[in-house]
């Protein structure tokens, strides 16, 4: 209990200290407010722009969720194919790496050309950023099945389908969920980058990435900082959700989640 209290109080104190430092810096250096706004001005901007920020957060969240689901689903399927056929893995893995190495800033215009400005491109960009960790981790999981367990299935005369269902897929779960966690941290970032590079606006409101461009061009610095705050919140919610899922699926049995009795 005392520990828990400390783990709340200590970061709170750090936060207070940082904000004090922030105000001190503004006082002492006399930086113009449009370069570095004060914390209360940012909060005021959040309040002022709340409906715009809410809408743009929802737009970004939609892109992040769809891109994340695509990355996780498609990544899992690709990993399954790669994990079960060494031949396909050898033939295709280098090209998956090429895809991964391709900077999003170069892919984005291509997506816009193919899919147009807006949600489909944003989802595609989020997918591109998130799918590789899922593929790499899950493939590893499918490949590194315990040899003894495999022999147990041989002794049981298990069919290939049974081995996949009862051994390979559950065995790959921890790896898959690790990949999913990484994809989960990347997805909101991917969606914001997507807004930024390929976003579109309805009634002047786009995703968070889009709004940063708008606020920046108008030199509304507090609102610009406010988008950063909203992006962080969105990221925390997203990662929290993925972590919860990880816990849900593994806490009963896996070492990483089981607490020693």
């Amino acid at each position: 209990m005392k520990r828990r209290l400390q783990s709340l109080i200590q970061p709170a104190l750090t936060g207070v200290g940082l904000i004090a430092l922030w105000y001190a810096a503004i006082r002492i250096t006399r930086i113009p407010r449009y370069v570095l706004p004060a914390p209360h001005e940012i909060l005021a901007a959040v309040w002022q722009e709340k409906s715009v920020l809410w809408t743009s957060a929802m737009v970004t969240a939609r892109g992040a969720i769809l891109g994340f689901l695509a990355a996780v689903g498609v990544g899992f399927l690709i990993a399954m194919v790669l994990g079960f056929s060494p031949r396909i893995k050898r033939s295709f893995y280098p090209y998956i790496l090429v895809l991964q190495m391709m900077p999003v800033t170069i892919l984005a215009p291509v997506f816009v050309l193919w899919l147009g400005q807006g949600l489909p491109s944003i989802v595609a960009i989020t997918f591109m950023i998130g799918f590789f960790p899922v593929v790499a981790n899950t493939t590893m999981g499918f490949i590194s099945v315990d040899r003894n367990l495999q022999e147990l299935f041989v002794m049981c005369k298990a069919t290939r389908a049974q081995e996949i269902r009862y051994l390979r897929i559950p065995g790959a779960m921890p790896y898959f969920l690790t990949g999913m966690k990484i994809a989960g941290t990347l997805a909101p970032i991917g969606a914001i980058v997507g807004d930024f590079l390929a976003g579109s606006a309805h009634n002047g409101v786009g995703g968070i990435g889009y709004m940063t461009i708008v606020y920046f061009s108008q030199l509304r610095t507090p609102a610009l900082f406010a988008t950063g705050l909203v992006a962080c919140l969105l990221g925390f919610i997203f990662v929290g959700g993925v972590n919860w899922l990880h816990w849900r699926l593994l806490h009963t049995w896996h070492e990483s989640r089981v607490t020693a009795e």
Partner: protein
Amino acid sequence: MTNPSLVQINRLGKRFGDGPWVLDGLDLGVERGEFVSFIGPSGCGKSTLLRLIAGLTAPTQGELVVDGMTPANARELMFFVFQDANLLPWKRVAANVELPLLLRGDLAAKRQERVARMLDVVGLSGSADKFPWQLSGGMKMRVSIARALSVAPKILLLDEPFGALDEMTRDKLNEDLLAIRERDPFTGFFVTHSVTEAVFLSTRIVVLSANPGRIATTIHVPFPYPRTAELRETQPFLERLAVTAHALRAVRK
């Protein structure tokens, strides 16, 4: 049939790739109802021999017949108890015991009944809903044995199943294994490092020498079943122990 033995091994040889011969020129016939232990120094190929009988690896030379079939075809008759308990960590105890029945396509009702009986036999009815990580080493091994016996195999192959356990737990599991065998008879093949264990369990002890693995001596253990813990303290038992230890020392040179 010209070959009445349940397991017949003729001039069996095994090497991995171009490596040295792990086993060389082995002849052995094992009858139904026997309990044969393989004992010998490290590298004598006793685990390999067990895996050959199971069909988990193929002979390089010679032949191996299990109930008139190749080992791979006779798999339905056999089950393997691995060195570590080898349980699926994501499945509860009951589901682990159920696995072989599930894989061979038994109906749910039959599976439930069989699992309940097997857990009762190994004394783990109260732990059916636990996960493997919640069990001690001895309990995990009990689950592994319950799982192996769930399919009522004619032949049970055990690869040093109690090697990692303390002596008291091991003695108890030895006694329990024989008690189970009274109710659900099987022909046993047992790899071990422990002389006491070999004498207590077996009808016959095959002592192997290393480099390459060959049969050095065979020791018959005449005590009738059911055998109980008291047997270990009798004079004839201690004599068999001495004979076996002596044979083992001879191949260690």
